[in-house]
């Protein structure tokens, strides 16, 4: 695209059609024409987006723009919210996620989620991580469960800190440790996609850096969709970035391009801090 005089080529603020290429050459999940309503209120409007295999995609945008609502559609966590309606097409490896025959339990085992606020169960650290493998019968023996717990905690970078305290309650950990425990819990069931809903918003910079390292390591194995309010974080961890505004997907593109050469006026205003 011609990048001559910036302001003239930029898409006008009023345009609501997605700018940039929302497809991915090797898609894991494809979403077409997605809308989410809470009662009469429309939270996400006609969004098309692909989630690629082993990519990290960041969803950014001001509060209330629909990025979390969109994220929660991907493993149907919106089902539990009363009055929430989801329309559009979601396909993971060709299977319709919202097919009435779709087993939500299996879907959630494949698409894990880490929430904004760490929510470890009021159980021991060990039981927190072993929870998923146990309900899915991933290990038949105690030793098998122990192995899964150890691998997951190691991958979440928490093993060294808690290996001697596995029977302490998960709630006794610090905030950053709790969030990593939640990550360990999510990856213990061997998901293929990990959704992260502002995973660092309650954490200090050191714990945040730790989580970001973790995202880097995990991206070798999983597709990761991360919702974040921190543009630096999106720039650091993601390969692609999608900018949402008031329920519309405004712009999608390679992260460095979105941050250096945003094509839509709204995107530019947001990342240059003209509004939040």
């Amino acid at each position, binding site marked *: 695209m011609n990048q001559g005089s910036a302001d003239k080529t930029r898409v006008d603020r009023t345009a609501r059609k997605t700018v940039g290429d929302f497809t991915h050459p090797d898609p894991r999940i494809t979403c077409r024409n997605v809308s989410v309503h809470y009662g009469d209120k429309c939270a996400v409007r006609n969004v098309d987006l692909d989630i690629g295999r082993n990519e990290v995609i960041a969803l950014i945008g001001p509060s209330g723009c629909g990025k979390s609502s969109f994220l929660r559609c991907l493993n149907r966590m919106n089902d539990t919210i009363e009055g929430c309606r989801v329309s559009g097409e979601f396909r993971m490896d060709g299977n319709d996620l919202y097919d009435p025959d779709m087993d939500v*339990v299996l879907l*959630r085992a494949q698409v894990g989620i880490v929430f904004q606020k760490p*929510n470890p*169960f009021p159980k021991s650290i060990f039981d927190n991580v072993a*929870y998923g493998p146990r*309900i899915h019968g991933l290990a038949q023996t105690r030793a098998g469960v122990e192995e899964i717990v150890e691998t997951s905690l190691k991958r979440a970078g928490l093993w060294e800190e808690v290996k001697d305290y596995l029977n302490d309650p998960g*709630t006794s950990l610090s905030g950053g440790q709790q969030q990593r425990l939640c990550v360990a819990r*999510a990856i213990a069931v061997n998901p293929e996609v990990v959704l992260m809903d502002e995973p660092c918003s309650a954490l200090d910079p050191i714990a945040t850096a730790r989580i970001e390292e973790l995202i880097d390591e995990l991206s070798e194995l999983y597709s990761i969709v991360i919702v974040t309010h921190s543009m630096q974080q999106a720039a650091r961890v993601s390969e692609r970035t999608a900018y949402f505004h008031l329920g519309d997907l405004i712009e999608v593109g390679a992260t460095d391009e979105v941050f250096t050469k945003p094509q839509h006026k709204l995107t530019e205003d947001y990342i240059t801090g003209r509004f939040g």
Partner: protein
Amino acid sequence: MSTPALALAVALLTILGYWIGRRRSFAVVANDTSKLHSRPTYHGFYVAIWCGIPAAFVFFFWVLFEGYLITDLVVAGLPESVVGGLSADRMNLVVNDILNLASGNIVATESDPMLRAAADHYIQLQSMSRVALVVLVLSLAVAGMGLSLRAVQPHNRVRNRVERVVQIFLIGSSTIAVFATIGIVLSVLFEAIRFFEAVPLSEFLFGLQWSPQMAIREDQVGSSGAFGAIPLFAGTLLISFIAMLVAVPVGLMSAIYLGEYASRKVRALVKPLLEVLAGIPTVVYGFFAALTVAPFIRDNGSLLGLDVSSESALAAGLVMGIMIIPFVSSLSDDVINAVPQAMRDGSEALGATRSETIKKVVIPAALPGIVGGILLAVSRAIGETMIVVMAAGLAANLTANPLEAVTTVTVQIVTLLVGDQEFDSPKTLAAFALGLMLFIVTLVLNVIALHVVRRYREQYE
């Protein structure tokens, strides 16, 4: 001035004090209230407190002790020839006669001039006391108002003092429950001690025979009384156990349905309906048990070839169980609702089903509250009286067979204290010993359950 009129006068003075204090606070700063440390309302309350509380205190204690004091004065004024050598009981009768004469009631010894004089003395003292009371209370109220009005100054920290008084009142209110408990325990305890003077503690605690009939006269045929409480406690526990067998599963499962599965509409309809069960008077449950459930069980039992007595522990226990369902369900439902949604989301996000989430996350997190609800229900079951009086029977059988009639501690307390009694016979005093035991049992249950809850709860943030 009569007592209610005086009380009204003090109340009016208090309100007047509030109003004057408030007005005065505006006046001292020429309506610029920003110069006041405390808001005008606080000045008003301050004056009202000083006006009302000391006067009310004196008023209350004066009325409380006036009667005793005057009686003592009158008795002291009686001539030695009358009082000398009278026993306490006889003395009481004389005092009663005087009081009756004073209040104009007709008494047998109307003609006795000595008593007439004493009654006149009494009336005279009483009217003096009344005048003194009115003067004292009203002058206290006015003096309090006057003194506290001088405290209406811009820099006086009146708000802090008013709040201190409010705090003292709150502390006082919260201690009333404690003192009431202590009072109840002591009154039961003293009577129980008198019982244990007549019947050894070991016989009461470990005796297997309960038959409290005592011979009233020496020559009467009949029992000497047996006070073994074991059959009563066994009966209580049997019925409570049956009741809990009904109430805990039904209550808990309905709480889970209401808290986790029911839509908002169903919940809004079903929860109040369940709580209606708690509002039914126990007497109504009682005749439901005695007239409907017990015959039903007996008839069906005889069809099966079982020998069911018409008053059975089973009938009483079943109905009692229905009665305490709302205790279990309502409290459990509240604590299940209090478990944060984030816990459920976390579990379901890992691919747990709704029921796995409930079993492994929600129930463990809600357990302390659930145990609390169950405990309350157990205390209710043990202390429940009306249903068992009507449906369980009076025969103190020591049995574990729920089809037989048993009796409970509460039923026996009722039968011991209903009708004419003499309060120096072990038969009557046994009721207090039973009450004390019942109290101790519930207390111990509470302590144990509290301990269990603290030990095993899974604490969420």
